[in-house]
């Protein structure tokens, strides 16, 4: 047994964790600090280079570090914006104005009945009997939400927020994309998993393997996305097939609505195998005696599905749903959309395209418009948004619960 002095012990610990700390500092913390710094500047394609005589810039900006090349371009260096949060103001448009705040209050008001319904159900779930069924509470909550939405003119409040605000346009659109695509993916995955989990299907292994093919193909998603794009081209496969039956198909990718539907469809094709695999695994973990007991009690297939299958696969599926929603197939969707529509079709100059989701918007700001500072501010807002979402999802899924036990 070695008796360490406090100093030696601390130095030893430092020697072990020092490299990791440095790694975290430079790989995790520094990029965030750099991005936040850029978000307060006017850096764009016309002010691309730093003024290395400014102390803060010389510390944070890599172009000022001795091992990078100093720029000798003709552009004037970028500086801190005046006011410093100007990029944030540009992005969130009228949020900080009175009409913007009223619009937010109206939207939040619409959600209140649903939150109350959830709490009411939570309360009655702990009771032996309840005066109204859980579904009934939800229906009342939904009806109240629709009523309040009508009273406060919900669409008008949404329009108000989207005026002069790229941020709200792309975030609302992305949330809509997630809200549609994730349930569709999991419902389709559940349906396929239920079918292929029954023992009556011959060649189940073959079909299960076949179902996973799109997932394997997603490793080359650009090519597969381009194949899908070809299907929906004006002279593509779909329109050629429609022509055979005498229908002149639309120009799918030029229509904002169709283009949005197509990226949901293609995302379904890429994503459902994952949902299918997760759900199939969870289904196989359900003990058969549960179903046998239910059958003896005379439960129908639907009752078994609702009261046995879904509750028992929930622990496996909910974390997967949350991860899908905030991951590359949901909120952070980029590749498929970029390959198929590049964020288009255009809805006009100066406004995001019809399929311009948050990641596509950020990419275009940086790589097409070189609006580094604006993209930086956008990334900061999205980071805060996703951070809150992640914390909330960790709470509802209790993924990290075991870590504290």
């Amino acid at each position, binding site marked *: 047994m070695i008796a360490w002095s406090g100093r030696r012990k601390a130095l030893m610990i430092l020697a072990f964790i020092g490299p990791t700390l440095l790694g975290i500092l430079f790989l995790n913390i520094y990029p965030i600090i750099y991005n936040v710094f850029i978000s307060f500047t006017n850096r764009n394609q016309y002010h691309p280079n730093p003024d290395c005589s400014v102390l803060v810039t010389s510390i944070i900006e890599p172009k000022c570090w001795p091992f990078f090349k100093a720029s000798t371009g003709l552009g004037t260096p970028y500086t801190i914006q005046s006011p410093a949060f100007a990029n944030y103001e540009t992005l969130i448009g009228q949020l900080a104005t009175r009409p913007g705040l009223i619009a937010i209050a109206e939207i939040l008001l619409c959600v209140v009945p649903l939150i109350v319904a959830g709490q009411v159900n939570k309360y009655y779930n702990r009771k032996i009997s309840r005066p109204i069924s859980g579904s009934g509470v939800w229906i009342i909550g939904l009806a109240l939400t629709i009523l309040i939405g009508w009273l406060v003119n919900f669409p008008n409040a949404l329009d108000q927020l989207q005026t002069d605000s790229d941020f709200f346009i792309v975030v609302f659109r992305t949330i809509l994309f997630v809200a549609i695509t994730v349930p569709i993916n999991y419902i389709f995955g559940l349906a396929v998993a239920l079918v292929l989990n029954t023992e009556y299907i011959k060649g189940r292994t073959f079909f299960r393997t076949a179902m996973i093919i799109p997932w394997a193909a997603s490793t080359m998603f650009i090519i597969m996305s381009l194949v899908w794009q070809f299907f929906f081209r004006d002279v593509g496969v779909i329109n050629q097939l429609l022509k055979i039956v005498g229908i002149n198909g639309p120009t799918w990718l030029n229509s904002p609505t169709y283009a949005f539907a197509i990226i949901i469809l293609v995302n379904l094709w890429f994503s459902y195998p994952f949902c299918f695999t997760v759900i199939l695994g969870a289904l196989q973990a359900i003990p058969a005696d549960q179903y046998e007991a239910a059958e003896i009690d005379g439960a129908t297939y639907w009752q078994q599905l609702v009261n046995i299958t879904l509750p028992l696969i929930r622990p496996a599926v909910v974390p997967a749903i949350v991860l899908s929603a905030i991951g590359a197939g949901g909120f952070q969707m980029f590749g498929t959309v970029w390959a198929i529509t590049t964020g288009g079709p*255009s809805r006009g100059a100066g406004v995001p395209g019809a399929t311009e989701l948050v990641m596509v918007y950020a990419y275009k700001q940086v790589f097409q418009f070189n609006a580094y500072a604006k993209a930086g501010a956008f990334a900061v807002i999205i980071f805060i948004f996703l951070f809150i979402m992640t914390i909330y999802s960790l709470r509802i899924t209790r993924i990290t619960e075991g870590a504290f036990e």
Partner: protein
Amino acid sequence: MIKKYWSLLTVIILAAMIMSACATATTAPVATVEPTATTGAPVTITIWHQWSGDYLTAIQAVFTQYMTDHPTVTIVLDAPQDVPSALQVAIPAGEGPDIIGWANDAIGKYAINGYITDLGTLGVTQDFLTSTYEPAAVNGVVWQDKIWALPESQEAIAIVYNKAVVSEADFPTDPTDFTGLLDKAKSYAEANPGKYLVCNQGLGGADPYHEAPIYFGFGVPGYVDDAGNVFLNTPEATAAGTWIKDFSAYAPQEASYDICNAGMTDGTFAGWWTGPWAIANLESAGIDYGILPMGKPFVGIKTLMITKNAADRNTADIALDIIKYYTNQANETQVALANKTIPANTAALNDPQIQALSTIKGFGASANLGIPMANTPYADAQWGPVGDATQAIWNGSQTPEEALAAAQTAIETAIAGMK
């Protein structure tokens, strides 16, 4: 106790960062050595370009000949998918090309970013330029009284039509008669279901370069001028937008270079609003073509620029020698004969063989009607908004008035950011 070491560690890291930041941020001193080629050591010159297909073949032959004449020099032709984006990563890292082959509209932007070298510092003089190249081409490579590139060719788009399918009579005789073009496109589409008179690769996508003949043909003096004035909320622009909407009924709804090229080859399109770069492919496909000016196109100058990195690597002199070689009379003549381009080199342009080319007459006539493409950074602000506005008009998302007013605002905002 441990907290004390944490503080110490933090102080050390911060001190290290500050010390590194306070160090003089300059590039490595340029060694005063002779260009590598003259010392006989092997040297590789990388060119990033946007040439493709058969058009590239003739260009490649020139560089191959240079390598034969200079055995120590290797020229690598590379076509990254997105050159502007690749440059912004490669140049600060000291990597990337020695030469960039790009249109002159990027000169202002690249100079501001510090990607390219003032050729005056390498000994290129205004006298050399004016005595070697066409006046329009010289104007295209000079910005803020500095020479940023050598001009390769001048280009403007026109309607290239398939003589086996249509004749000159199927197009208006007056290049600004857009009503006539619309009528003829309508008649052709109605008489030939599923086929179209003209494919414009800019319509249906977001490509203001190919849309320019329409806007300028209706009297718009330019999207943006050198002073940063924008001309999209004008009656002329609205008239052009309205025509584009009307024309969408008699044109392919989706278009791109590849779609137009394929449609010309298989007879779906009788004509293609395109430039000299498409001719080599059409000739390979055995198409007998004619060229007619239509509208007022952008007149662009294809140029070759030398990067800052070439200067730092001591390859700038060799790079300059290569681009001078490529743009000399003999090589410009050779490339123009193969690719049917309009050479920027005056002696090559005056060569009787070149003057005899039908493409020189056709594209030359179109260029004579055209609007020179600016090389100021303001020019960079026009592409996105005009493309988005035209696409919104084309797909019906916005009326011409709404779309062009929004484009006007977007460009003015971008230019205000520059100023």
